[in-house]
């Protein structure tokens, strides 16, 4: 029963990722082909999301943008989780001055309103989507550092760690074979719950012109581009928004079911 609850969201996420990966080959129309004869057409059977101001098929454009939108969100989560976990394990396991210093640094990062710092950082990098990914990851790592440090501290004094030490394992071996496998579940759950938020924040940065910029196909910047047409042709603006909503929903359902599964375990 419990497995079933997590099976469907997992399949959905897997399908979404495969779809996003191959998205450039899956568009029904050519993404960049302009046809001013069919400019700003309302949704129809031929164009289920309508066409934009240049007559490009919106559905194709939304599909084409899924790769960058989804994989850059995954990159944010991966980057901040790995940085945070490395620092967290280092601090938790070794303690001492390095621990104190790094934890004070993470305190300071946590004292910033996250998105504010990310907006400024992304704006200063001015490096397209990569700048936005780095900005969000550099703001997000302290949460992972805190989490993994706490988890390490609670497993550090377990008898099996002592046993590993007695049997002659060195620190690196203990971290990789004993500590990491024990704390990784909790971290993966947190990371999965963060994917949706990261996707929305990345889209927000691109929407503000601080992330992906045209011609890079990305949902946030597509919404920004067509904002002025909201009154005349709302479908151009709403279609990428709906794509964000569906994708974030899928990741959120997946994250929550994973959390429930893990908690029940």
């Amino acid at each position, binding site marked *: 029963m419990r497995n079933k609850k997590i099976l469907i969201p997992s399949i959905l996420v897997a399908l979404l990722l495969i779809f996003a990966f191959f998205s450039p080959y899956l568009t029904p129309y050519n993404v960049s082909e302009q046809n001013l004869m069919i400019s700003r057409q309302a949704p129809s059977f031929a164009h289920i999301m309508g066409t934009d101001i240049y007559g490009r098929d919106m559905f194709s454009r939304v599909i084409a943008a899924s790769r960058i939108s989804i994989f850059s969100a995954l990159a944010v989560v991966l980057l901040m989780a790995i940085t945070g976990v490395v620092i967290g394990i280092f601090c938790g396991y070794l303690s001492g001055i390095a621990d104190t210093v790094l934890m*004070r*640094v993470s*305190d*300071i*990062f946590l*004292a*910033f*309103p*996250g*998105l*504010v*710092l*990310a*907006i*400024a*950082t992304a*704006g*200063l*990098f001015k490096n397209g989507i990569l700048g936005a990914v780095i900005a969000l990851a550099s703001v997000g790592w302290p949460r992972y550092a805190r989490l993994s440090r706490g988890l390490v501290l609670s497993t550090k004094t377990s008898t099996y760690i002592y046993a590993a030490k007695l049997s002659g394992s060195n620190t690196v071996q203990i971290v990789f074979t004993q500590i990491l496998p024990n704390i990784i579940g909790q971290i993966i759950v947190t990371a999965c719950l963060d994917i*949706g938020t990261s996707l*929305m924040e990345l*889209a*927000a940065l691109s*929407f*503000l*012109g*601080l992330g992906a910029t045209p011609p890079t196909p990305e949902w*946030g910047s597509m*919404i920004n581009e067509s*904002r002025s047409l*909201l*009154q005349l042709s*709302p479908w151009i*603006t*709403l279609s990428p*928004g709906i794509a*964000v*909503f569906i994708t*974030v*929903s899928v990741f*959120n359902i997946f994250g929550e079911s994973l959390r429930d599964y893990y908690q029940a375990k």
Partner: protein
Amino acid sequence: MYKYIFKRLLSLIPILIGISFISFALIYFTGGDAVAVRYEAIGGVLSPELISQKREELGLNRPFIIQYIDWLLGVLKGDMGISYVSGKPVFIYILSKLPNTLLLSATSLIVTILISLPLGILSAIKSDGIFDHIIKTVSFIGNSLPNFFVALVLSYILALRLKLLPVISQGTGIKSLILPTLTLSLAMSAKYIRQIRALVISELSKPYVIGARARGIKENTIIFFNVLRLTSLTIITLMALSFGSLLGGSAIVENIFMWDGIGKLAIESINLRDYPVILAYVLWMAFIYVFVNLLADISYYFLDPRLRLGGKNEK
């Protein structure tokens, strides 16, 4: 009481210094050449000799740490430099936009509480009923919608279709405030309804509630006088923490509705590479966030008798 506040204030000093250091370093290492940007903004082109002369004049050739300390001492005196673009002192410039952002944040927070508290409690009391399921679904949807998209949908429906409200803020009147407030509070409410629901459900199963029920005290009395009072601590913590995302969110919403606050100024400054203003923006927002969290901590004192009597906050 005062001793506690004093201690909290002292502990803030290293955090505030750290915040200022990180903000300054961020601009210092990622920002371009200040002199070039400044004259570009005015529209002039300078020869390399003149640029290096100007750099000398402005003290930009000094080591990083000296520049930082110099800048920090200035900030303490209320001098945050001069905007490259407008030529106005940044401190006063930001201060003039601050009330609008704080007004928007405050109204959003109030509306969020007005929406999420009753719905969260109701959802908890009737948990697993039809109402609860509807609320759950709606808040899930709200959690998966980016706020800039909500802003556009709301302005499409309320402003462009029904023509009830202006699309773009005209001044800072109530009518202009409705759409940005609604956008920010809908997104936050979706999150809070779920958290308040979970909080109230866990509180309702505690022994004191069962005891009160056994003594025949009305359910409403228990909820309003006991449960609400005890959960208010956690709710205040949540609100204080979310003030940070509110400040970030307001940058987005202010830009969509052209609300004349700090967030709109920040994005304009980023596009114009007006570094002193960007730096001041980050610094002000962080200070406000830290201050709001301090206020939340102090408010525990009034709400939690255990703390007042010298015990520890167990929440």
